[in-house]
């Protein structure tokens, strides 16, 4: 990746992280940890990879995105706002009564949200349905989904994994955000869903393992996925939960908690200082 492009994406990802913190802080609750861990991949998806148009969010030929780990909506909203689907100022209405920005993504009301999600395991199946639909009608759009690592404890993820390989959904690209933590602790302590690579491989997927904060690797993975025919691709994205805010990094307590005022100030200071932008 050339330097100017990388700088641009790093700036975007940093803005997205700021948007996450603004949203969760304003709401007084939410899920910052897993939102911050996907900020780099989400920024790449919405600014480089996917064909989407903020002026025509329902365009039938657009690429689709399903946030299967729907609780990390603060990141999706921040990246959509950054991309121009709605005003950034609206991020501060997150989770408030009468706001469009529901605690989990709501496709009926939020421009740019392609599927309502939140209940874990359901999103990847919906993404499979979209990819199958494109195959049926010969449409060229691609479908992207992002899953949590803990989410992979849901049996439906593996039902969907079977389905996608069975129907050779090479227009589907999933990403597992492997940050290693879930609400109750380390995923390997709670209920070990690893190894992800071998499991998906056994289910018939093309598997790519990357550092989820390395934009070169993110770009290489999504580019390679597009060239794979006859099978879906999953990117196992090794990431840091809470990435970009020092006290949130690898700290399980920031899975689902909002910063207090002092913590908020520290987070914003760190992010605007440009110290932690991947």
């Amino acid at each position, binding site marked *: 990746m050339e330097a100017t492009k990388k700088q641009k994406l790093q700036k975007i990802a940093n803005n997205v992280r700021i948007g996450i913190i603004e949203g969760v802080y304003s709401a007084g609750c939410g899920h910052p940890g897993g939102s911050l861990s996907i900020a780099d991949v989400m920024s790449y998806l919405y600014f480089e990879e996917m064909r989407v148009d903020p002026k025509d969010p329902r365009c*039938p030929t657009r690429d*689709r995105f*399903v946030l299967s780990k729907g609780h990390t909506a603060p990141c999706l909203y921040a990246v959509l706002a950054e991309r121009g689907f709605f005003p950034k100022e609206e991020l501060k209405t997150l989770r408030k009564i009468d706001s469009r920005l529901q605690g989990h993504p*709501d*496709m*009926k009301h939020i421009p740019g949200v*392609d*599927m*309502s999600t*939140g*209940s874990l*395991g*359901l*999103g990847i*199946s*919906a*993404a*499979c*349905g*979209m*990819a*199958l*639909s*494109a195959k*049926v*009608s010969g449409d060229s759009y691609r479908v992207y989904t992002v899953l949590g690592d803990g989410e992979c404890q849901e*049996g*439906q993820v593996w*039902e*969907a994994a*079977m*389905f996608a390989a*069975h*129907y050779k959904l090479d227009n589907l690209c999933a990403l597992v955000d492997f940050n290693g933590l879930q609400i109750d602790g380390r995923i390997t302590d709670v209920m070990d869903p690893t190894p992800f690579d071998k499991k998906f491989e056994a289910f018939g997927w093309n598997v790519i393992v990357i550092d989820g904060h390395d934009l070169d690797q993110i770009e290489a993975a999504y580019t390679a996925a597009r060239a794979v025919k006859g099978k879906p691709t999953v990117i196992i994205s090794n990431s840091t939960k809470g990435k970009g805010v020092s006290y949130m990094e690898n700290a399980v307590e920031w899975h689902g908690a909002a910063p207090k005022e002092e913590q908020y100030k520290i987070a914003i200071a760190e992010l605007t200082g440009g110290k932690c932008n991947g």
Partner: protein
Amino acid sequence: MAEKMATREGYGKALEELGEKYDFVVLDADLAAATKTGVFKKKFPERFFDCGIAEGNMMSVAAGIAATGKIPFVSSFAMFAAGRAFEQVRNSVGYPHLNVKIGATHAGITVGEDGATHQCNEDIALMRTIPGMTIINPVDSNEAKAAVEAAILHEGPVYLRFGRYAVPDLTSERSDYSFKIGKGMQMADGTDVTIVATGLMVHLALEARELLAKGGISARVLNIHTIKPLDEEIILAAAKETGALVTAEEHSVIGGLGGAVTEYLAAACPVPVLRVGVEDVYGRSGTVPALLEAYGLTAENITAKARAAVALKK
């Protein structure tokens, strides 16, 4: 009268016939032969997708298909479509109000010998709690076909409930028959009591009407194929004009048609309403006639409840 036929047969035939006219896809979970979607599969293999024994995934896949603008019919037994996949119906289909048509067969105890694990007497109750869900329980194969086309033309999720057991044709030779979602049909008039029936209970209600007539009681019989949205107009008229009602359904007495009618009338026009249905128990194995008898889904039980309802009138 045409020969008896299960409503699932009408479902399969409708998919096959309407497949030419409308652009929809069909999903099933390894039950295509039983749900009758296999008929469609044979004719339109490129529009049929077996999802294997994974109903939760299938329901969310259907939601994804609908999100791209296509209409998916998604089929399994009622137990698995409404039961196993309830949460997927609620969150993937219902919450975003996606245009998914759920064709649930083998509903109720007339599944027969397979017994309690497969006899779903709770699906209407479950589906009724989902905002925006339309629920249709056709009376016969002919009505099943009409319901499938109406579901295609309806924008939003529809739960179509079909049975395994062959039932009499009550509609195809009626000149006054027409099908409209949410519009009940008066099958026979009466003045003393109204039997509000759905599905295979309608023909038993008509038998009960004959039995009641012998005892000097005039019973109106309604076919309520659409349980949600309920035809409140026809129910209210029945309450006002006959003063007592009996609901009859092959479903739990909790939360189904009986639930819908009593919830409505308690506020709109409180009159005696007694319910015929599966009491708060599980089913069991047996032949269908033996099961209908054992669980009180009979003309005789409807008759007894109708007499009791009339006696409760002030």
